[in-house]
């Protein structure tokens, strides 16, 4: 289908494309091991977050929490804000985003273009400062509605009802599903759906491992695990460092012509790991992974050019996924 009544109706239904050149070669006579990319950058604002934003807003409307003209408040470091800004605009809401000031300039420009208002929390204060800023804003505006993507069941349900079924429809022989672990919505939703439908499916998480500056301020006793997270949905979980994420992001565009953001590089790194294990073990594998967004919003980091060490330095201290 290529005609829709509105942009919101064009959310999801993204292509799944094979990666014949990045898929590992198997010995003669061995079962095939294939990689497949789910192009979530083909959503209305260019990221997988459109699915969650649309479902969360609809759920809030149905529950009577959101009424025309209401203000939505969302602490976000990027794509969710862009998605929510688009959905809010089309559904008649105002969006205020709270974010650390060290996100890329493209993201800020995009958010403002879509009509979002932005309140920055100082980057130097790290998450503690973001918490303080968010609390203060919430106290001053008790009538603002927060969708809270980390604990909102509609976030995971978006992927249970759309991403998961799309994957199974397009790839009935799927053996592995690999996605990024942030709010955990994609993995929980699509992962649960696929576990129900596909015997023995492996649900694999790739989480970004940032530079030390990001963790440096964090006290272990004040850690965060999103409420949506249920470890029993996952089969494995990989931590992918900046260098590997950049390497794979570049490889994806160089070898297969897919220009993606760095979180996708981290996801591809984990997908390649499980694909190569399957080759080693002589098992058939159809590994589907998520291309979470395109690379456009990250060009200003400079991490697409120069040496890997340069790129690593450029991303140090940044939330690149």
């Amino acid at each position, binding site marked *: 289908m290529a005609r829709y009544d509105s942009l919101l109706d064009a959310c999801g239904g993204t292509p799944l494309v094979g990666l014949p050149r990045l898929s590992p070669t198997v010995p003669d006579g061995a079962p095939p091991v294939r990689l497949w990319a789910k192009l979530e950058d083909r959503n209305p604002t260019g990221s997988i977050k459109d699915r969650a934003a649309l479902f969360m807003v609809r759920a809030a409307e149905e529950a009577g929490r959101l009424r025309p003209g209401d203000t939505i408040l969302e602490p976000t470091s990027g794509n*969710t804000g862009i998605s929510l800004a688009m959905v809010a605009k089309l559904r008649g809401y105002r969006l205020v985003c709270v974010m650390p000031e060290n996100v890329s300039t493209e993201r800020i420009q995009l958010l403002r273009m879509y009509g979002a208002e932005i309140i920055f929390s100082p980057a130097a204060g790290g998450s503690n400062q973001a918490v303080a800023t968010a609390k203060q804003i919430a106290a001053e505006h008790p009538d603002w509605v927060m969708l809270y993507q980390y604990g909102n069941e509609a976030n995971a349900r978006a992927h249970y009802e759309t991403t998961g079924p799309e994957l199974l429809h397009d790839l009935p022989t799927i053996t592995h599903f690999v996605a990024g672990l942030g709010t955990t919505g994609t993995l929980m939703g699509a992962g649960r759906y696929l576990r129900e439908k596909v015997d023995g499916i492996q649900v694999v998480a790739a989480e970004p491992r940032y530079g030390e500056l990001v963790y*440096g301020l964090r006290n272990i006793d004040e850690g965060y695990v*999103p409420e949506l997270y249920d470890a029993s949905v*996952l089969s494995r979980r990989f*931590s992918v460092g900046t260098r590997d994420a950049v390497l794979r992001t570049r490889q994806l565009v160089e070898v297969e012509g897919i220009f993606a953001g760095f979180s996708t590089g981290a996801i591809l790194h984990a997908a390649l790991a499980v694909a190569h294990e399957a080759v080693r073990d002589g098992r058939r594998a159809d590994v589907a992974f998520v291309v979470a967004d395109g690379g456009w919003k990250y060009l200003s980091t400079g991490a697409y050019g120069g040496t890997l060490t340069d790129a690593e330095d450029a991303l140090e201290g940044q939330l690149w996924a």
Partner: protein
Amino acid sequence: MAIEVRIPTILRSYTGGAKVVEGSGDTLGDLLADLDSRHAGLRARLVTDAGALHRFVNVYVNDEDVRFLGALDAKLNDGDSVTILPAVAGGAFGFAAAAAIAGHRAAVAAR
């Protein structure tokens, strides 16, 4: 048997400031006990009194989360690399802030 262990900034007070230390052990549990013999107090920050990994600590063996490899029983081999990190999923800042507002709202509602 040498296993390289990467220590997060917040726990380097136990390692004399060292970013990377070496230890040995057949399992993660053994390794943490070995480390604690030279870096007293470190293990208690990672393992609860009940003997499980602390909820807000993530430990990776060769970049894979040990909770899916047997947790403290995860097998280790010479040359493995172990990374300890505070639990922050992607979008950590957003989550921290979001959790704070949710907590704040709940506190207001309970008043």
